[in-house]
């Protein structure tokens, strides 16, 4: 499933909610440089507002990095970029202790992970050892080096990209790592007019660098709090849980989505409700996000048609869509 099939609802013109105002501001800012990717932008925004991390997947040159950088520029905070390679060491990511002669001791020098927004490019080129260094950071917003735990800045938002083709020298992401991404999406093709516009703008100059931040770290932190407080009715919660549980019994699935997936699904649905200036979550939010939140977490029985990670991601999303067709939408409170 590509993001093109995500039909973003009409956005409110004048949001009443403060969180919605912020969300709209970020999205509008990103869309100044990212064209024809509205659904993708909204999805990444969902990840940003829900406190989750996002995995972008597509062929090189399709704008993954541009989207990630545009979000990073929109948040007024520290931004770091990690280019993953086969010789990347965990210490290169987390930072390490170095001897400080003046103090006669080791001093921790933070690595590139210590930023509000971190872009990990071509994540699957890093060795499993380097990838696992990201695990704690993504899950607990902290890194432990030499037995000392160093909290990461708050808010912490990680965007990773992955190249589905050219699999030489790559290390497929382990399930544990995939499960820590709230949302995984593919960008898909732009239509010809949009593509021409993109090329025209890029001919002039690199536009991302001209973006100005529209939200500060503290404000983003507050907005995330508001997202967490968005009302989820019991039927909607049941719906999300039912979808997640249904993935575990699907015949094509070896390992279904976890409880963490259910939490992420509801969290992202809350974020979507906020983006659309709604004070409560609808089953629609859950339904639209489920393929992107659950698809990459499913471990499928290997079919002949899925050889690469990207295929497996698309197949996972398709399975989720199939599962959802069988889960009735609750229509009343119990």
């Amino acid at each position, binding site marked *: 499933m590509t993001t093109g099939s995500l039909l973003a*609802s009409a956005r409110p013109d004048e949001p009443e909610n403060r969180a919605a105002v912020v969300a709209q501001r970020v999205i509008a800012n990103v869309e100044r440089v990212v064209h024809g990717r509205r659904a993708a932008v909204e999805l990444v925004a969902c990840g940003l507002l829900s406190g989750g991390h996002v995995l972008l997947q597509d062929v090189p040159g399709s704008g993954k990095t541009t989207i990630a950088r545009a979000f990073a520029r929109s948040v007024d905070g520290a931004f770091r970029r990690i280019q993953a390679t086969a010789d990347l060491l965990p210490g290169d990511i987390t930072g390490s202790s170095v001897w400080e002669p003046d103090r006669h001791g080791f001093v921790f020098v933070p690595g590139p992970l210590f930023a509000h927004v971190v872009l990990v490019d071509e994540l699957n080129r890093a060795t499993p050892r380097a990838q696992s260094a990201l695990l704690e950071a993504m899950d607990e917003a902290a890194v432990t080096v030499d037995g000392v735990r160093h909290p990461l800045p708050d808010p912490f938002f990680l965007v990773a990209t992955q190249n589905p083709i050219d699999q030489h020298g790559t290390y497929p992401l382990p399930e544990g790592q995939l499960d820590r991404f709230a949302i995984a999406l593919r960008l898909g093709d732009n239509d010809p007019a949009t593509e021409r516009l993109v090329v025209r703008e890029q001919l002039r100059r690199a536009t991302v660098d001209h973006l100005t931040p529209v939200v500060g770290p503290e404000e983003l932190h507050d907005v995330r709090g508001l997202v967490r407080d968005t009302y989820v009715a019991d039927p909607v919660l049941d719906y999300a849980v039912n979808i997640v549980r249904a993935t575990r019994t699907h015949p094509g699935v070896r390992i279904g989505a976890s409880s963490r997936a259910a939490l992420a699904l509801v969290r992202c649905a809350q974020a979507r409700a906020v983006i659309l200036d709604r*004070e409560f979550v609808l089953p629609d939010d859950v339904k639209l996000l489920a393929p992107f939140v659950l698809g990459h977490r499913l471990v499928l029985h290997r079919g002949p048609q899925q050889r690469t990670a990207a295929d497996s991601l698309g197949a996972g999303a398709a399975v989720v869509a*199939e599962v959802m*067709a*069988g889960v009735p939408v609750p229509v*009343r409170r119990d």
Partner: protein
Amino acid sequence: MTREALLAQNTRATRIAFVVAGGCAEFALQPLLPFVEWLPLLALFLVVAVAAVGQPFAPPKPPPGTAGGSASWPLRQIVAVVVIGLAGAVALTRLRPGDVAAEGRTLALLMLFVQFAHALASRTRREMALGCGVVVPTLAIAAVFGGDVTLVLPVTMSLAGVAVTAALLHRDVLLESTTAVSAGGASSTVRACVAPLAVALAVGALLFLVLPDTPRLRTHTAFGGSAGSATSAGDRATSGVGAVGANTLDLNARGTLPTAPVLAVDASAPQYWQGAVFADFDGRAWHSSVQGGLQLWAPDGGMLRPGVAQPQGQGRTDTATVLSPDAVDVLLAPGTATGYAGAGAVISDADGNARFASRGPAQNTTYTVSSVAPDVSDDALRAATGTDVSDPRWTFVPSTVAPRVRALAAQLAGSTSNRFDTVAAIEDYLKTHETYDINSPLPQKGDDPVDDFLFVSHRGFCEQFATAAVVMLRSVGVPARLVTGFAFGDTSSQPGKRIFRGSDAHAWVQVYYPGVGWVASDATASSAASGASSGGLSLRARIANALKSGWKQMPHGRVGAFVVVCVALALGFAGTLLVGRWLVRRRRVASVGATAGDGPVLAAYLRLERALAAQARARAPGETFGEFARRLGGLAIPAGDVHGAMRCLERECYATGRRAPSAAEVDAAVAVFDRLCAAVRDDVPVVVAAGPPARR
């Protein structure tokens, strides 16, 4: 093709399947009714069917609030009531108290027309489905009471029709509109069913009371007045009392079978009571006469016939009570009569014929009869040797008997080495290749009845079976003759007694075994052989018998019968309705859950969903309100209103109490849903796109 056209086509297909099912049921009734009565009924049905198929499915209804309230009874409902009333009146004129089969057909006929009229008056497909269900009990009644195996084909076809209809209706009836019971749906269905039925019953009752009591109502016509089922002993063979004693048995005519009791004997007495012995067959009819030296038995009886070779076997003496008001002119005995004590004088001959010389015993008087019947084992019969009967009458075959009949007999007898096995082979052939049918077609005058039975119709009752057996046996040289009398009788209605009724008249075969005498054998298919108990009857026959005996206990007379018919109809209809509702409710409970605590907007929306289910356009279970809202709209209501209402619905269902819709918003949303609902009922499409496939 436009969506509307598709919709109309779908509707029409449903209705056609419905009518086909009804048509099969009508066809099923054909053998049960005289042609002259069946033809007008068929015409009536055709008119109803054409009207049902042709009329728009749900004719436009004035929206609520406008001045359309006075259009209370649409034309089709009036037509429906008239049709039911007419059908009821016709059916009731067919009603003959005491005649079980006719009453069963009456019930079936009436229910069938109720169903047609229901089809005509139905507003929704769900009602049609319920009406369709009426076909099933209708045919069941016709089959059980009619006891006609020819019903199997039309019943099957009709059930297939119902199945097709059910399949067409499936999504509406069982899946989506399952929510249709709670509010309004059920009561309107009940109204639609009950109102025409009640009025029709009233009209029928009125006509029934007003119409003059024509003589035809009291007499039993030969056709359609018969009782009996395929497997019971009841047989119109020898036409009751009169025919049992008749001298001639014409195979090209059919007698009547009154259910009146004829004779009461002890329950332990044999099941076959023999009357006349028929020796002469001329190719069309059997003739019987008292042959040779007339022998008068004194009224005080007890004397054996002198000068006649004593038949061998077990002698017994029985006492019988005459129940028939008409005198029985033949002496009935469980074997060859050898002595008599009772009123009147008896003339007997060497064949075993025993007739009353003048008037026999009067009603409710008793006579005693001694008789002898051979009692030998099968092996003894196989080994029987001695002098064969010499009279050529017993092996005479008329020259008109077709060669292929003789050839068949020769073929069957060819592989047997003794007389008993020959008889068994021919009997087995008849029982396995021919079908017992009390209403079997009669051969044309001049046709060979045996040839017709064996090679053309393959259907017949005991006369045909017995005649065919005798002719075939004689053609291979086995001495055989035909005997009429009563068989089986009824041991349940009076304790300790076996009651023979006119409908128990039967014809069977006697074969002469050298050294043994005349031994009875019954070639009639599905009838118990001599000595077999009713335990040999099939389950269906026993159910039918139980129903009939239960029916006989009921109060008779015209009014009583009418009441019984009405009650049965009401019960049948209520049962159908209940089953339908139960199906619907079961699905609803499984899919949706309790309805308590629904908000007003949700309640209004669910009403719409129910209405849409009838068009198979309801929201899919996995579809959210938001997705459904995008499909909703169309011509009926401005899209903005619809979306506003759906937003309101979402807030009612999923938002915090703080964000719950206000009273004004609730009212507006409910109004929108109600308008959509009305539009759906008027067949205005309100869903502009098809739903998502169930599985992607």
